[in-house]
């Protein structure tokens, strides 16, 4: 009997010993990609590239909030729901977690880095992977990396420039900030590298992919945008022309028919689009919150009061029946359509509408457009205004603006070019961009770009006073005070990043914060 108890006792001890620390005995290193076992076929390269797109798509809410809320045309009505109210109140801190975390973008960058680093090796291992296909994948990887860094540089200004994939622990996770100029230079190099091979596609086999994956057109549009940010206007114009003057049968085109304006959003992936984040509920069960966080059913986001006034003005210019871009297009009022001038709330309708008047989409899978032809046209107009002040150059700009206006049934602008100033001209562009790209995650970058160029020449007019005028929620004196501080125009580095990467230096504006 005693012996039996002893055995049971012994067995129990043994049993505990074997189960203890089980995980540490059996699990493979979690922090290391087993590269030798991966990277053997072209399908694997495409899968990693695909992850890059998926990660970028996962970041859409951030892209929206970062691009809109500080700009003041749209605001979050919900406080404390993760809808980014600290951005619109200019109260972000390093402790704001996801809201100020660049991690979603570095995930995309890491996927791109992996493709760029390993594609060559795979080509040697996989005979079916020919160089043209590899180069084509590389153009997409460069595009994703450049676009991600462009979002980073516009939001944080300085950030670590990481060009190698994190596949093993041998690479140090600690990396210091690079300057804005270095990051911009890298972005331009990436795009130039991608364009040089001539491997960038003009279209993909599947229709959605032509707009959902990076094409030659997307690379040019991105380059134009970067050059505009960087005040390199001749290059910006060059790349805009690559899109606007293209003769390829597969080029994206500016659809001039006003009644087709809504097709940019429904069904999406339209001719006028260049690159957009894709969702497909019916085929792939993919949905997003664009139509629910906006729309008119207790949404998190609506237009601000000043923006609503702009929409009412625009509706009055065309009349309700010809309003394609304003009422029932970009917005719907909280009152009956005939009484739209009495509206108190302007609901964002791009991601909810499917045609003229009050029809509403069933599937919550609206795409999020990053570049489209109208954007390239207005980028070119902006670059033409700044590149030269001669009448010919400005005439081109006016024509481009008027094309966008005519498509929305709006009267043309007819400035007397000999009498208007550069600021007047830029104000036309800025207004048109605000209305045309409302809720497309561009407004803040437009204001910041317009405000900071030329050593902050137009800071007051285009940045500070515009935000004060549009912002619905923050104290005007506070907004002025923040926006007059250069470092405060950018986001703080999130706290956990600073703890994990001790070479990072926090933006000085946020260093005094506790």
């Amino acid at each position: 009997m005693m012996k039996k108890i002893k055995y049971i006792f012994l067995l129990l001890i043994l049993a505990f010993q074997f189960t203890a620390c089980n995980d540490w005995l059996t699990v493979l290193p979690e922090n290391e990609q087993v590269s030798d076992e991966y990277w053997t076929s072209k399908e694997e390269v495409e899968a990693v590239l695909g992850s890059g797109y998926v990660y970028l798509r996962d970041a859409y809410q951030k892209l929206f909030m970062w691009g809109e809320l500080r700009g003041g045309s749209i605001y979050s009505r919900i406080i404390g729901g993760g809808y980014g109210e600290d951005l619109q109140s200019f109260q972000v801190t390093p402790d704001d977690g996801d809201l100020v975390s660049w991690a979603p973008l570095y995930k995309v960058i890491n996927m791109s880095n992996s493709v760029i680093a390993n594609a060559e090796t795979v080509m040697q291992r996989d005979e079916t992977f020919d160089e043209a296909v590899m180069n084509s994948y590389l153009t997409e990887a460069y595009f994703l990396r450049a676009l991600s860094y462009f979002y980073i540089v516009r939001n944080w200004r300085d950030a670590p420039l990481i060009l190698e994939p994190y596949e093993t622990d041998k690479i140090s996770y600690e990396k210091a900030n690079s300057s804005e100029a270095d990051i911009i230079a890298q972005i331009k190099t990436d795009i130039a590298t991608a364009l040089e091979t001539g491997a960038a596609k003009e279209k993909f086999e599947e229709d959605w992919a032509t707009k959902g994956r990076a094409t030659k057109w997307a690379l040019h549009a991105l380059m134009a945008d970067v050059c505009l940010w960087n005040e390199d206007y001749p290059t910006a114009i060059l790349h805009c022309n690559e899109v606007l003057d293209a003769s390829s049968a597969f080029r994206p085109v500016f659809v001039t028919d006003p009644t087709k304006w809504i097709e940019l959003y429904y069904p999406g992936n339209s001719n006028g689009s260049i690159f957009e984040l894709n969702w497909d509920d019916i085929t792939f069960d993919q949905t997003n919150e664009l139509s629910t966080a906006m729309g008119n059913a207790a949404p998190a986001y609506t237009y601000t009061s000043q923006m609503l006034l702009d929409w009412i003005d625009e509706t009055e210019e065309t009349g309700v029946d010809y309003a394609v871009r304003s009422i029932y297009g970009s917005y719907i009022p909280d009152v009956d359509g005939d009484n739209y001038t009495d509206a108190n709330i302007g609901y964002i309708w791009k991601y909810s509408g499917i045609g003229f008047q009050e029809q509403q989409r069933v599937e919550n899978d609206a795409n999020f457009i990053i570049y489209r032809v109208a954007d390239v046209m207005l980028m070119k107009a902006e670059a033409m205004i700044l590149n030269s002040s001669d009448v010919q150059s400005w005439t081109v700009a006016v024509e481009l603006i008027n094309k966008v206006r005519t498509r929305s049934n709006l009267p043309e602008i007819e400035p007397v070019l000999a009498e208007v100033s550069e600021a007047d001209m830029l104000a036309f562009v800025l207004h048109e961009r605000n209305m045309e790209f409302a809720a497309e995650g561009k407004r803040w970058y437009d204001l910041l770009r317009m405000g900071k160029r030329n050593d902050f020449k137009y800071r007051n007019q285009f940045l500070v006073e515009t935000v004060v005028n549009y912002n619905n929620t923050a104290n005007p004196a506070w907004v002025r005070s923040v926006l007059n501080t250069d470092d405060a125009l950018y986001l703080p580095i999130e706290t956990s990043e600073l703890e994990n990467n001790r070479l990072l230096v926090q933006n000085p504006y946020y260093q005094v914060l506790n």
Partner: protein
Amino acid sequence: MKKYLLFCMVFLIVFSCDDPYENDNFVVYDLDPAATYLESRQDEFSKWIDILKYADLYNAVNQASKSFTLFVPNNDAVDAFLAKNGAASVTDLDPEYAKALVRFHVIEGEISQKEFLIGGKLTKTTISGDYLSVSFDDSGDAEGGINSVYINDEALVNELANTVTNGFVYTLNDVLTPLVETVYDRLNENESYSIFKEAVEATGWDETLNTVYDTVQTEFGGTTVLKKNYTMFVVSNSTFGDAGVSSLADLAQKVEASADYESSDNALNQYVAYHLLSSSKYITDLLSFSEGDSTAIWSTLAPKQVLSTHDFSGSYYVNYDVATSSGIGLVSDKTDMPAKNGILHEVDSYMPVFAPAPRTVIWDVADYDDVASVVNEYGASQELGDIYQTAQSSEYWIAFHDNDAIESYYNLKVNSTSADYPQLGYLVTKSSDGGATNSYGAYKNDMLIVNLGYLGTVSMKSPVLLKGKYKVELYYASAGSLAPFVSGGSLCKVSLDQTNNEVYVYDGAAASVGIYDMVLFDEVDFEETDSHEFKIVLLDSRATTHNKYRLQLDYVKFTPIND
């Protein structure tokens, strides 16, 4: 047995766990209560600690059971402050003053950085009972944003919201100057107001103007402390000089006063009272008019006397006289002078008692000074700040039961009621646009709730109305729950002094949220300038039986009728 143990030991050694975090360091965040936290930063804040100790409030702000927000000036700031006050060290300060100073720098309750940076008046008072206000330097000259945040336009905030276990510590570059002077003190300290000051003393108004808090007994033996506020239109000696007045005796003669200055009938007494309003009115308040109007009438503390303020396309006047096309001006830089219990504005005339021409008068039936105090006290207790006449993010119904201060305005006869509303109360409206508009569209964002049961009665005093004939209209609120009363209306008897009328409130309104109006009297004739007794008797039996019955009164409008 030993054998088994040995066996086990060997196994234990072989399978012992590795600590995966063995070589990692972890940061432990130590947090202290407020005063201890300051001790840990002795070299920066030792002098303020000295003041805290000297004022005997050091341990108070270290309590764990309460939370505080401390505003702590650094050593340089304290040195500059002491030098300015001619004190060599902290102990040279008057202990009472030191206490007042510290109380002005401490808020009970937490103000987070987010709340703080909203700007404007903070929603919680300091322990001294004052509201601090936050502003920003938006000139663009200095580093902006969090580097240019000021309190009371006086002290630059160095660090925002350091977390301590019992709240937050904000550090300041300057000491805040507490507001301790009363309206009377302000008169007293300024030599150029000596004649007016003597008049105030001679007539006995000095005691009133020195009162900050008034303790009122409630029905059941409790007490309520009410904050008193005044607005004074003060006259300088040189302005008196222009009117040929160089002494108190001259002034008494000028206004034809007899010697019994302390009597309320006395002309000098009335003259002083005519320069006083019984609430704090900043210039912006005095110059905010009802829609489309440019003149406002204000009841003064002189019985049956009013003064008027005007904004004629940017030119501001007091008591503009159409007959002479002239008015009294406000002396620039000498307006909005703050005191603990009110505001002073200097006028550029000696401002005798004057009867302005009859005007449309909008009487907000909840606009009484102590109502404001009671409502704001409730707001402070709910950490909402001053909510009187200020729309909030949600609606508040504040009951006025058994409050002597309130019942001195509203004379009540209460019967039983089934409705779950205050018998008499104050409604703070809700705003969904940050206070710009309210959901009812109510004037001044408030309403008076009346729910006194069948045959219940409320009577109240109107503001002073200039003699003449008026049309009288009532503006009241309706709502969906009032649908049963909207059809057919709800009978009330209304009276102004001896003039009666029976009216059906809600008749003609819709059963949806909004403000509606009805005529109470087509014409009443006031034979003299005075205030009047306005009375409502609820003659609808549903006032007792229906659980949704109540009146929500917004205002009464008196429109002069010119013959």
